[in-house]
């Protein structure tokens, strides 16, 4: 990524334009799949066709014999530890004696043309012995089923026990819910370029969410120290969790070191569906006990996540699903059992909403059920039970900043509704659209509500920090700040936020965002809605250190104490302008690097699940309005409106963009997005068969942003990116239930669920 600079002014609370916007509309922005190097060759991956098989041998001779092929590699060519994994080192970089899912990488080819490499890969002969596959996660812990990993099929089991162990209540409602496997479906394919340095090391340019953890993983497999494997962020075409695990990283590096040539890898879309983890499918059994008035007395939840063949971030997803899986409600007595298991299905890991998305479908469906049972309005039952500042959540953690559940749900209720359909309608506004399946007959409107919450940042005791280096110097007589972090810009606009913070803290107009790489300390992961909070906090702290150094310089030069920076002027304690920032800096450059940590969290108690597990909570509510053709089972979402507390909107336009985009992904899971896996095999690895919402599917979205500052967070910010993906889907599902009267205990909702 080229360094980006803009003269667009804009401090926090403004909405300056993205510094990379012009490059992105002219086609000049260098994404990871755009990279090119003299003399480079192309790498491809041979993957397992079987969900579970033993490998008796791999014969690469025919592949190597193909003209144009430079290398064919297997696990035998891995110089270091042949293991990768975000939380458990359980996955070979290249398969050894067993493959555990369809799509597992087995061998690599480098050739001078991608088609040559693909043809060579087809000539690799792998001697597989198919093994019985475990494909039903509900049987994973039974006796006698195939063992996916040497340590058994349980990744994590989490229990929460709070309050009365045998609670009773006059009103009891229960349900079972099932959530299908969603894909991140970022548009930029997994790709990158590895360039050997001729001295046994290399530079890897790659699209990712966390450069430093990638570097650790690459170095472990390559057996290189960090200074020999330098990572650089290439342009990222979306991420949404799907770039937390490695994709081409180790493979491109292995090929580059082996051939001595730069190696480019770029997955086609079908390979992308096998090349990253997905959102865990989940099976949820919930029970609420409440008073006759609808006040919750207890809740029980049993949640099962299918982790697939390798753990990825299943441990943390179970953590979220368990600790947050009953929603933003006050519940005196709680029993939660959450499990993640290994199967021979595709590995599942991080996706936007991370364990909360699945649970929200269940607790929100059950909250509607409770409302109807006790005769309370569906909005008001949420207001009645919703958390407030000062409450304790189900792990006993104090909610010590705003928790405006009642305000959020009432706010979406009070937003204007779309006009009721009357007379002749444009068929493009109806279910089925231009397919001309109805002119309004059989179409029923429904309205649904949901409210949810999500942790911000990494939890359960993880030291979740970020590092920022800020340099201030004169360029062309004008003060210019350069901000260097390793925090990944994936499209969300972090680089804009970094510039805004520097302008706010240092009084400069010009801020250069240094290319992101591992030459500065870790920025942590671009996930968990955490970068504006954590890297924003680090940039703010580094700016404060620079400002203090500049004022020390000014004091020494001017012989006066008690100075402060006001815009680009140095002023005395009484407010008199004594010098300009430029005068004080002169030929000096002031540079400070700060590692910034947020409030520590704790591991939860292994038996009771109690503890201060999370840093911060973010709340959102949605109202969906749908038209359903109840004869054909087709759904048109007419409106998808939301309210969210963001603490402080650093860049209000970008906040709205995050909320709208996140809402679309949640709606997609409710209506259409599912990786269909049968007998361990993916049936729809393409955008022909895996559908994401188009501009025709999306309705207008009203967004109401609340700003209740979190006193513990920099500028009062609250993470923004994930909550909309959690509350939008359950609202859509509720609206379809309202229109059809069907229970709809599975998402995505298919036409046959409505009509049969």
């Amino acid at each position, binding site marked *: 990524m080229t360094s980006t600079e803009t003269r667009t002014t804009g401090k926090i609370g403004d909405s300056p334009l993205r510094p990379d916007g012009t490059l992105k509309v002219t086609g*000049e922005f260098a994404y990871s799949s755009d990279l*090119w190097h003299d003399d480079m060759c192309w790498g491809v991956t041979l993957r397992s066709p079987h969900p579970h098989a033993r490998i008796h041998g791999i014969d690469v001779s025919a592949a190597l014999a193909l003209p144009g092929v430079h290398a064919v590699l297997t696990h035998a060519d891995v110089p270091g530890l042949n293991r990768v994994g975000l939380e458990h080192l359980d996955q070979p970089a290249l398969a050894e004696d067993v493959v555990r899912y369809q799509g597992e990488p087995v061998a690599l080819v480098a050739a001078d043309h991608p088609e040559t490499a693909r043809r060579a890969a087809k000539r690799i002969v792998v001697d597989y012995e198919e093994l019985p596959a475990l494909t039903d996660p509900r049987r994973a812990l039974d006796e006698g089923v195939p063992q996916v990993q040497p340590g058994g099929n349980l990744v994590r089991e989490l229990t929460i026990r709070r309050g009365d162990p045998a609670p009773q209540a006059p009103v009891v409602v229960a349900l079972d819910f099932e959530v299908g496997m969603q894909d991140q479906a970022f548009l930029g*394919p997994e790709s990158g370029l590895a360039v050997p340095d001729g001295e046994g090391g290399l530079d890897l340019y790659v699209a990712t969410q966390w450069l430093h953890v990638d570097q650790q993983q690459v170095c472990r497999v390559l057996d290189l120290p960090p200074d020999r494997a330098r990572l650089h962020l290439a342009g990222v*075409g979306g991420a949404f969790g799907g770039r937390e695990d490695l994709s081409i990283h180790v493979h491109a590096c292995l090929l580059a070191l082996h051939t001595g040539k730069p190696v480019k890898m770029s997955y086609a879309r079908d390979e992308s569906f096998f090349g990253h983890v997905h959102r865990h499918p989940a099976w949820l059994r919930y029970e609420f006990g409440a008073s006759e008035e609808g006040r919750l007395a207890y809740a029980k939840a049993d949640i099962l996540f299918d982790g697939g063949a390798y753990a990825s971030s299943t441990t943390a997803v179970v953590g979220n699903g368990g600790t947050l899986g009953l929603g933003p409600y006050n519940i005196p007595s709680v029993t939660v059992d959450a499990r993640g298991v290994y199967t021979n299905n595709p590995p599942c890991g991080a996706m936007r909403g991370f364990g909360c998305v699945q649970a929200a479908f269940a607790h929100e469906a059950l909250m509607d059920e409770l409302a109807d049972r006790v005769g309370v309005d569906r909005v008001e039952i949420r207001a009645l039970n919703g958390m407030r500042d000062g409450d304790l959540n189900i792990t006993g953690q104090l909610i010590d900043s705003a928790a405006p559940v009642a305000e959020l749900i009432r706010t979406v209720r009070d937003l204007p509704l779309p006009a009721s359909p009357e007379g002749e309608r444009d068929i493009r506004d109806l279910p089925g659209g231009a397919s001309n399946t109805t002119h309004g007959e059989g179409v029923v409107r429904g309205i649904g509500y949901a409210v949810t919450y999500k942790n911000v940042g990494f939890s359960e005791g993880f030291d979740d920090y970020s590092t920022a280096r800020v340099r201030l110097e004169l360029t062309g007589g004008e003060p210019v700040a350069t901000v260097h972090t390793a925090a990944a810009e994936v499209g969300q606009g972090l680089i804009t936020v970094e510039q805004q913070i520097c302008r706010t803290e240092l009084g400069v107009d010009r801020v250069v965002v240094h290319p992101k790489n591992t030459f500065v300390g870790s920025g942590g992961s671009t996930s968990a809605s955490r970068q504006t909070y954590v890297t924003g906090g680090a940039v703010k702290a580094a700016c404060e250190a620079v400002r203090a150094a500049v004022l020390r310089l000014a004091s020494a030069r001017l012989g006066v104490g008690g100075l402060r920076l006001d815009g680009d002027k140095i002023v005395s304690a009484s407010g008199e302008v004594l010098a300009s920032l430029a005068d004080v800096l002169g030929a000096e450059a002031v540079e400070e690097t700060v590692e910034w940590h947020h409030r520590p969290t704790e591991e939860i108690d292994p038996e009771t699940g109690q503890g201060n597990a999370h840093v911060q909570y973010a709340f959102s509510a949605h109202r969906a309005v749908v038209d359903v053709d109840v004869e054909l089972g087709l759904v048109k979402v007419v409106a998808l409106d939301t309210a969210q507390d963001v603490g402080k909107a650093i860049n209000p336009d970008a906040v709205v963009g995050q909320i709208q985009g996140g809402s679309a992904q949640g709606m997609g899971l409710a209506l259409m997005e599912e990786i269909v896996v049968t007998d361990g095999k993916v049936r729809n690895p393409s955008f022909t068969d895996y559908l994401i919402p188009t501009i*025709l599917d999306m309705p207008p979205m009203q967004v109401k942003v609340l700003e209740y500052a979190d006193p513990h967070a920099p500028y009062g910010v609250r993470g923004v990116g994930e909550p909309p993906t959690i509350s939008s889907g359950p609202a859509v599902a509720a609206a379809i239930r309202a229109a059809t009267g069907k229970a709809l205990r599975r998402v995505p909702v298919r036409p046959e669920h409505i009509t049969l």
Partner: protein
Amino acid sequence: MRIELTVNGERHEADDVWEGESLLYALRERLGLPGSKNACEQGECGSCTVYMDGVPVCSCLVAAGQAQGRDVTTVEGLAGDDGLDPVQQAFVECGAVQCGFCTPGFLVSTHDLLARNPRPSDPEIREALAGNLCRCTGYEKILDAVRTAAHS
């Protein structure tokens, strides 16, 4: 094989093109024009949309050989000497760009829509852009950008 074509007003040629290569591959990997994007390479996402003889096409579905002698305009050819095209400007200013991977295709499709229909209604915009997938924005700010470009 050898191909010759005009891209963004300039004559280009490429040698040793394999018959199976797409126009998209030729633009990106042989002609140094990676602006058109490779999100699906199966004609579903629209990120590779270019004009060929004035008609928007998915360049991933056009064989490079089919572009022989044709006139192609890519996202790199939308801006003029006096700066960004109004469609490009509107996408930047309205926040219609997040990751931006879909943006080149949306720009060409929008440019074509406004050439045919300078004042499209919202349903007309949605229909015209239904072949372009975006995963970041939820499309609201893309609609804003198209409306803005139509009025600039």
